[in-house]
């Protein structure tokens, strides 16, 4: 199921502006990797290059290699649509489809990819909602609109929607930044469970969250405003938060800047 990601020499651009510069790292399967760093340092951009969502932005362009196990996501002939089926994504703000019920939201990925068998959809929806710890809260109102749920529930609905298509990797772009502490806790617990099955990459501004949920942490920074973001270091979360090998990391984590 879960796959490992090897990135080498990756640059991403918005038009003429270079957003991230020469990033290389390995992301281990069945683990949680957290990206931390100041705003604008390219964490989210880098995350979006991992499922080819960066190029959806007008002017977005990428060069370098992203190997998923041994397959280059940016190799010739690779279909971005197939990549996104393998590498799922959860966004910063919960974004359930407003025209769809809770059931249809979870089933959306399968349905829109042409799978319509009722019994299968039902199984997958239940399994995904259980996987996202939402089943008990919504099982009696599956045909109500998804936008009627609370923010935390909506975010878990989006996670259920993302895992319903059975991706290998799950990217999360600040999934808790719009949520209260209790919903955040629910999602963090969920991340702990999901890493048994998926490779998880999470961008967060919350250092405690990175320390709580992740196995490895990558610190990004940028030299100055307008300069591209760089990977400063990536290591075991414990080491990053206790004894990082780069001074800048320690400064950021201890709150001396950023």
């Amino acid at each position, binding site marked *: 199921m879960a796959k490992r990601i090897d990135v080498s020499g990756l640059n991403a651009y918005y038009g003429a502006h270079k957003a991230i510069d020469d990033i290389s790292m390995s992301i281990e399967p069945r683990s949680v990797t957290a990206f931390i760093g100041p705003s604008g340092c390219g964490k989210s951009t880098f995350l979006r290059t991992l*499922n080819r*969502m960066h190029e*959806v932005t*007008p002017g977005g362009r990428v060069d370098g290699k992203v190997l998923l196990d041994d397959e280059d996501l940016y190799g010739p002939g690779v279909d971005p*649509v*197939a*990549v*996104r*089926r*393998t590498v*799922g*994504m959860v*966004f910063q*703000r919960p*974004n359930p*489809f*407003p*025209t769809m019920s809770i059931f249809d939201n979870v089933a*959306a*990925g399968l349905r*829109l*990819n042409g799978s319509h068998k009722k019994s299968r959809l039902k199984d997958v929806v239940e399994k995904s909602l259980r996987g996202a710890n939402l089943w008990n809260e919504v099982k009696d*109102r599956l045909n*109500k*609109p998804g*936008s*009627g749920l609370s923010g935390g529930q909506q975010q878990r609905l*989006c996670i259920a*929607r*993302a895992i319903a*298509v059975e991706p290998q990797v799950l990217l999360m772009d600040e999934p808790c930044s719009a949520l209260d502490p209790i919903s955040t806790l629910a999602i963090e617990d969920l991340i702990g469970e999901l890493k048994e099955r998926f490779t998880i990459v999470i961008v967060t501004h919350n250092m405690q969250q990175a320390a709580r949920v992740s196995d490895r942490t990558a610190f990004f920074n940028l030299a100055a405003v307008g300069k591209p973001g760089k990977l400063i270091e990536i290591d075991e979360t414990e080491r990053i938060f206790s004894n990082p090998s780069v001074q800048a990391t320690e400064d950021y984590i201890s709150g001396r800047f950023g």
Partner: protein
Amino acid sequence: MSVATSHRHRKVTEPRTPLALKQSRLPRWALPALAAAALAAGCGTGLAAGLDSTVQWGLIAALLFVAGTFALTAAVEGVRQAKDRLATSVVWIAFLLAVVPLASLLWETVARGSKVLDGYFLSHSMGTLPDAMPGGGVYHAIIGTLEQVGLATLIAAPLGLLTAIYLVEYGRGRLARTVTFFVDVMTGIPSIVAGLFVLSVWILILGFGPSGFAGAMALAILMMPVVVRSTEEMLKLVPNELREASLALGVPKWRTILRIVLPTSLGGITTGVMLAIARITGETAPVLLLVWGAKTINNNPFDGAQQSLPLYVFQQWQQGSDASYDRAWAAALVLIAFVMVLNLVARGIARWKAPKAGR
């Protein structure tokens, strides 16, 4: 207001804080009383000065009321409140000025049009009836309008919709800018020019005769930019996050547009198309040039002259007899009712299809 006066007002019951937040206000009856007074004064002046237009009476009353409220409020409540009242009055007067012609138009049409409007009128054509004779009907014109507008919609709605989808979802760079520019230019085409264009191409160069279809083509030219514009605005309102959410699920772009973007904006798009239909339903000039008008029923829009409601109104009015005047008003009423039903349907669809948040 000074502390001394406020103390005098509140006597001895609450002696502690002089309330600076409170200030004297006009009593509730003051404004209605002023309005009545202004109205009376307006009518009085009108009568005295021998103005025979009641509109002038109303204007005098309105001016007196605005000036009176301003002066009175400024004296009692302060200048800021006075300005607030002034702005409120101006907004209300502007609203009334906008509504009065609409209401009187509707009233006039209903009053005059309902005279001959009945089942017979709706289900018969003019046939061989002489113009000065009472009787006859609009059935042929209703059929013609329905067919011409229907054909125009069949041409313009899909083209406009696809153009808007191109512009919002795919269009980048010069081609998109050019398309936008020409859509803007097309929005300003006078209907008679669209009619002349189709006349020269379809009838004069290609040699076809007048037909409902020829009229429908001209109507489609008029309708298309309206559909493009309104659809474009609606598609732009769909949050980008929804597109990204769908793409991130591994859904191809065309499917995202078809299953996420369009359903989310369907209510607004339908409203836009309906309003565009309403706009072309009342067009007379291209129909006059291309469909010519007829007195008998022609069910085939592809062959021969047809009638349409606005053209029927125009031709009946031209006849100049009492009976034809009545028929013109009745047909105008039918036309207004048709457009109104379209608008109501559009609103219904918009409400029905709007994304709902229920628990």
